[in-house]
């Protein structure tokens, strides 16, 4: 068990912002925090989307041959030519959200809120902010802005460092 004498820390580099990939970092961060591990998330490139006030992670199976959906007792993948049609991102995002809700999986909004409540430290990549021309006010309050050195500083003192 962990106590003051063997406290552990974890960092997660969050690089993806689609609805599916938004889950692993928030699930692991909230769980680690609940288990007494000091947790830091560093949001860079598309992961930065997950810090937006207007949070809207989406998904499209285009080019993802492993994305099958349970259907009529089996599993079906959407052909790329169909996934490429206009409106498919909205449709598949809706389908995925309905499935997540039906299976009792929390929403990304809820997990992000729980991560903040559990004092998970969040760093937004300043370079990505500049690159994609995001403003500080586009993002939720709380995360601080920093660069690679900010992550390395925390990671060097951490026991678990993940790149997702």
């Amino acid at each position, binding site marked *: *068990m*962990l*106590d003051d004498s063997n406290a552990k820390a974890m960092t997660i580099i969050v690089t993806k912002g689609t609805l599916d990939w938004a889950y692993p970092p928030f*699930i692991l961060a*909230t*769980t680690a925090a*609940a*288990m*007494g*591990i000091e947790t830091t998330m560093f949001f860079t490139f598309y992961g930065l989307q997950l810090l937006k006030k207007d949070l809207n992670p989406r998904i499209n199976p285009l080019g993802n041959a492993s994305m099958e959906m349970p259907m009529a007792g089996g599993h079906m993948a959407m052909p790329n030519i169909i996934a490429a049609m206009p409106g498919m991102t909205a449709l598949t995002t809706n389908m995925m959200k309905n499935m997540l809700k039906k*299976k*009792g*999986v*929390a929403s990304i909004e809820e997990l992000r809120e*729980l991560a903040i409540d*559990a004092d998970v430290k969040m760093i937004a990549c300043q370079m990505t902010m500049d690159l994609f021309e995001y403003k500080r006010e586009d993002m939720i309050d709380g995360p601080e802005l920093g660069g690679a050195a900010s992550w390395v500083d925390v990671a060097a003192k951490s026991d678990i460092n993940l790149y997702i």
Partner: protein
Amino acid sequence: MADEVLDAKGMNCPMPILKAKKALKALPTGATLEILATDPGAVKDFEAFCNTTGNELMSSEQDGNVYKFVIKHTG
């Protein structure tokens, strides 16, 4: 009889653990929390949670589709 009951039925990973942590935090040391869940992954996860946090997993039972855990707040 546990001091408090948490109904986490229908919730999927990681919600039963997060809700349990919140409930334990509000309980005094030595108090017990009963958790009801339907997520089969919770069996292994509550063991792991208690192992790391030092809370005591007093019992872990299954009744049909429902899993029942009793945790003593010692961590």
